[in-house]
């Protein structure tokens, strides 16, 4: 009975169990340490899991020893392992960063509950990635969502409360839509296990109930994912949330929603049904393109850097939606690459802004003037993240956009390639605004600050370096995304 057999459940249990531990110990410093250790161990488990999956193929874990489809199954294939590494890895880096930032931004009384909630959010997000049972996915989704509403409301600005409330209303509508959709699927198939569903659904593709269920689930996930017209909760939530929370949510939460979308569209339903028989491919392409252009345009006019990046996130999610809508192998590979690379760049950027907020008190454009003089490392990390966001060759952002453009050209859809390029041009404009202010403006004379503490610089530097590393050495990410999308295209999650 080795521990390695239980890795799939350990990934979730570690943060889940650490959360009450924080409350019991009730010391700010200790709860930070517990959170960091729990997410680090969870990251270690995910790395082991990825190795296992690469050697033995998909892992099926029977929760409580009950055989699927009666019991709940945790099923880890390449895509799940990939997402687990992303979520737990970024969570670890963000937590390394968190200590001083949280001490400053969150009132003393709330620090312990803050970390406990953060752990719940991480547990929920990892849970979504491993679960092989659709109802279980819903439960984990709500664990992570309710935790995020709470985390966002802990922002310093009172507008955080209003933003959290709006997110709560829209998020709950989305979750209930998913619940209704799952109910419809269960009504006709009598199963909740993803494998079983994938086996029984093809015979029912013409059934109206199944189609309605499909529509409910897609719209519900669209709300969680902040797909273009459903993105209204996102900008305010990211702007007013504590810096640490913005970084964690921007890097992981929406990505996990994309993962759910891929799972439902391609594994539970099949590529032929969801993107061919249903007009979803056109819808995703249309909404994705609109998101790229309109959200990037809005981002240009923002003066609050966090809000600027939030709008840019909506645009980047548009890229991912567009790539999924292409419905071919290279499109899916590009989507998965962009999930990973976007997490890296937004992680680096939001952490850098977190350091800026820590030292300067806000993330307004005018406060960033001449930042290079006081905080050179933070400024460089913003620059690298920004370049990656634009997609300059040599950065991670370039790789995913390159694959995306290739995927559009494969289908002969060159207007879409132009839209992707136009999005990059718009990104140049809004990133230039920041770079110009940081590097070429003289700092206001009153400000005298120094570089952020080492514990903040290190995770920021790691993420910035990762942006460059994965831009130059693409083997790891491209191979993973490529084989994961092969698995998805084959359908059925075999």
């Amino acid at each position, binding site marked *: 009975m080795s521990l390695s057999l239980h890795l799939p459940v350990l990934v979730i249990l570690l943060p889940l169990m650490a959360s009450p531990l924080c409350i019991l110990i009730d010391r700010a410093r200790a709860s930070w340490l517990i959170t960091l250790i729990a997410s680090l161990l969870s990251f270690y488990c995910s790395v082991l899991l990825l190795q296992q999956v690469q050697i033995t193929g998909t892992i099926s874990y029977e929760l409580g020893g009950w055989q699927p489809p009666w019991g709940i199954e945790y099923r880890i294939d390449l895509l799940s392992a990939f997402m687990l590494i992303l979520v737990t890895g970024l969570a670890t880096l963000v937590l390394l960063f968190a200590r001083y930032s949280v001490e400053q931004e969150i009132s003393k009384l709330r620090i312990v509950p803050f970390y406990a909630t953060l752990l719940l959010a991480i547990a929920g997000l990892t849970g979504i990635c491993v679960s092989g049972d659709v*109802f279980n996915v819903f439960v984990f989704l709500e664990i992570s969502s*309710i935790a995020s509403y709470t985390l966002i409301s802990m922002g310093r600005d*009172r507008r955080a409360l209003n933003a959290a409330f709006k997110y709560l209303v829209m998020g709950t*509508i989305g979750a209930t839509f998913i619940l209704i959709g799952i109910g419809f699927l269960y009504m006709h198939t009598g199963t909740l296990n993803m494998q079983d569903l994938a086996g029984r659904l093809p015979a029912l593709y013409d059934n109206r109930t199944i189609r309605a269920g499909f529509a409910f689930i897609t719209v519900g996930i669209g709300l969680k994912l902040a797909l273009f017209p459903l993105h209204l909760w996102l900008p305010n939530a990211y702007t007013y949330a504590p810096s640490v929370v913005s970084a964690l949510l921007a890097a992981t939460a929406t990505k996990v929603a994309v993962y759910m979308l891929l799972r439902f569209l391609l594994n539970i339903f099949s590529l032929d049904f969801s993107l061919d028989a249903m007009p979803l491919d056109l819808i995703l392409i249309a909404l994705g393109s609109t998101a790229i252009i309109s959200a990037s345009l809005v981002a240009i006019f923002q003066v*609050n850097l966090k809000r600027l990046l939030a709008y840019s996130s909506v645009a980047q999610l548009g890229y991912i939606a567009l790539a999924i809508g292409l419905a071919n192998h290279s499109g899916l590979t590009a989507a998965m690459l962009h999930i990973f690379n976007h997490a890296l760049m937004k992680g680096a950027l939001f952490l850098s802004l977190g350091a800026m907020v820590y030292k300067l008190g806000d993330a307004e454009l005018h406060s960033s003037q001449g930042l290079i003089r006081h905080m050179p490392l933070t400024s460089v990390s913003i620059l690298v993240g920004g370049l990656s966001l634009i997609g300059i060759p040599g950065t991670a952002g370039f790789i995913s956009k390159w694959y995306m453009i290739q995927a559009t050209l494969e289908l002969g859809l060159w207007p879409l390639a132009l839209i992707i390029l136009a999005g990059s041009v718009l990104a140049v404009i809004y990133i230039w605004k920041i770079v110009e202010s940081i590097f070429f403006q003289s700092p206001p004379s009153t400000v005298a600050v120094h570089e952020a503490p080492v514990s903040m610089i290190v995770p920021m530097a790691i993420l910035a370096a990762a942006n460059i590393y994965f831009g130059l050495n693409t083997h790891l990410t491209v191979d993973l995304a490529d084989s994961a999308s092969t698995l998805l295209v084959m359908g059925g999650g075999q």
Partner: protein
Amino acid sequence: MSHFPGLFNYWIVIFLMMAGFYVVISQGNLVKKIIGLSLFQASAFILYISEANVDGGHVPILEEGITLYSNPLPHVLILTAIVVSVSTTAVGLALIVRIKETYGTVEEDELQEIDNAQDEADTPDQKQQIAEEKEI
């Protein structure tokens, strides 16, 4: 089963769902929004419970001489979903309490006005002024 009375439960589900959804969208008062949201979620519960019914099925308790049972699984699922719904409502209400404390109102349009005013005030030249006001 396809007659109107046979689908009575589902008509109730649709009615509750739409009523709840409409309340969430149309009401400006945050507490009413949460009530609408609960109603909306409750409709999904009834959907699941209706699904579980098997014609002529017995209550799912093991008993001699009974072979046909209703499906117990959706009931169990819905217990979980109710827990989720209750916690969402609790978090929502807690947020409303804090919104009331800090803003002094729970009307959406008034909140929006206050937020907009603050957004405008965040522009550079007035920043100083706001900081001073806060100190007072």
